[in-house]
C-alpha cells in the first residue's frame, strides 16, 4: 500500500497554521489542490507535496443571506472561488473584506478559518 502524500487531516493541520499545501505530479507535473489519489491528467500516483503561496484573485463570489441553520448567525457572509497564482482554484469564505468592496479580480490571501476543532479555507485582504 502506498502512503498518501497528504491526507485531508494533514492538509487541514497545516492550513490551521496558515500554510496552504498542494500536490504536484512527479510524472506529468500537474498541480492539484485538494489532494487526490490519482493524477487526473496522467492517472499516475506520484504526487509530491508542494507549498502554495496562498495568493490569488477572486474568480466569482456571492453574498449568502439565507444560510443553513448552523450558519444563520453569520449572515450576510461572502463565499468566493479564488484562482491561486499557481493556477489552481479553491472555494473559501471571505473574511475582513467589506462586502461592498468585493469584485471579480480582487487580490486576496489565504486565511485559515478556525472554529473549535474545525478548520476551513478563508481568504482575506492581500
Amino acid at each position, binding site marked *: 500500500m502506498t502512503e498518501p502524500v497528504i491526507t485531508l487531516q494533514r492538509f487541514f493541520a497545516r492550513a490551521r497554521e496558515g500554510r496552504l499545501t498542494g500536490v504536484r505530479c512527479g510524472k506529468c507535473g500537474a498541480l492539484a*489542490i485538494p489532494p487526490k489519489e490519482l493524477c487526473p491528467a496522467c492517472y499516475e500516483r506520484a504526487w509530491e507535496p508542494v507549498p502554495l503561496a496562498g495568493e490569488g484573485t477572486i474568480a466569482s463570489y*456571492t453574498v449568502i443571506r439565507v444560510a*443553513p441553520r448552523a450558519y444563520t448567525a453569520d449572515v450576510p457572509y461572502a*463565499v468566493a472561488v479564488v484562482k491561486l497564482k499557481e493556477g489552481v482554484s479553491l472555494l473559501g469564505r471571505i473574511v475582513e473584506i467589506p462586502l461592498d468592496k468585493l469584485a471579480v479580480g480582487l487580490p486576496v490571501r489565504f486565511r485559515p478559518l478556525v472554529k473549535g476543532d474545525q478548520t476551513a479555507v478563508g481568504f482575506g485582504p492581500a
Partner: protein
Amino acid sequence: MRRVAVIGVGVTKFGKHDRTSSELFAEAAADALADAEISASRVQALYYGNVVGSETEHQLHTGPQAASILGIPAIPTTRFETACASSHAAFRHAVMEVAAGVSDVVLVGGGERVLNVPTPESTEYFAYASDAVWEQTLGLTFPGVFALIARAHMQKYGTTEAQMAAVAVKNHKHGTLNPKAQFQKEITLEQVLKSAYVADPLKLFDCCPFTDGGAAVVLTSEEVARRSRRPVWVLASAAASDWMLLGDKRDLSRVPATERAAAAAYKQAGLTPTDVDVVELHDCFTIAEIVATEGLGLFEPGAGGLAAEKGMTSLGGAIPVNPSGGLKAKGHPIGATGAAQIAEIVTQLRGEAGPRQVDQARVGLTHTLGGNTATVLVSLFGRD
C-alpha cells in the same frame, strides 16, 4: 438492445402535503399504472429516487417502503441518490434493464417531502449535496453555488439580472397553465428584480421553491408497448458527471456534465439539438436554465440569457423550454423531479398537454442536474 417505451405517467399535485414521500410516490405510481392501462401485477422492478428522506422523515430503505405502500412489495427495488437528479438516474438504469431484456415492465419514480421542516433546516440538508469537508464548512448553500455560476456567466458574457428574471417570469406564466404546479400565478419582471437577495446576484424569485411531491412513469419493452394506446419511445438516456468541488471546475460559466450527457444522448438517438421540439430542463435557479439551454446546444455559450429575454424559450417561441412551469413554478420535490419532467415530455408528445401544448411536438428532451453540477442526466423521447 431492445427499444423501450413509456406507456404511462403520473404526477401528484406539487406543493405542501401532510403525507410521506412514499405515499406521494404511491399515488403517482397508481395513477401511472392506470394511465398505462396495465395491472400492477405485471411490474417486475421499481427504480426509485428519494434524496433527503433520512433527514426530513428519518427514513432510509425508501425503495421497498415505496413499493410496500404502493402494494407491490415482492419486486426488486433500489433507491437512487444523485441529489436532484435521482429519479432521472433511476430512469436511465430502468431503461437499461428493459433494453437488456431483463424485464418487460418496470416502474420508475420518486418522492420527496421537505416542507415539514423549517427553511434553515432544509437549506442545510440540501447543502449536504456539496462537499462536507471543503464546502459545507464555509456555509455554502445551493443558491450560493448557482450565484457563483451566475456571477461567472455575467462576467464572461454580460448576462444581466433582467435576463435571469425573464426566465422566472416565463416559467411562472407556463405554471399558470399547469394545474399540478405549486405556483399558478404570473409574476412581473419588476417583482423578480425587486425581490430580496438570497445569494447575490440571485434573488428570491430566481430560486425554485421547496416542494413535496411524487411522480412515476411506466417503462415497457416494445412488445408490451405495441399493445398500449399511445407509447412514447425512449430515444436515448445518458448520464455524465463532473468534479464535485466548485474549485476544481475550470470554467464556472459552463456545466461540462450537461455538455457531455447531451452529446452522448444526441449520439445515441442520432439527433441534433435542432431536432428537439420541446424541453423540460433543470431550472432550480434562473441562471441554471440559461446555462442548460447553452449546454444542451439549443443556443451558443453566452447566448442563453438574450434568448430567454427575447421569448425564444416561451410557449410559442422557437424552442419552448419548461412548458410545465419548470422547477421554478411547477415546484421541485427533488427525488421526484426527473420523473416529473419525463411525465411532462410524454404528455407533450402524446398531444395531451391542453393549454400548454407545444404544437407539433415530435421529439422531446429532459435534462436533470444533481447537486453542484456534478451529475447530469439527459434523455430524448419520440413518438411514432
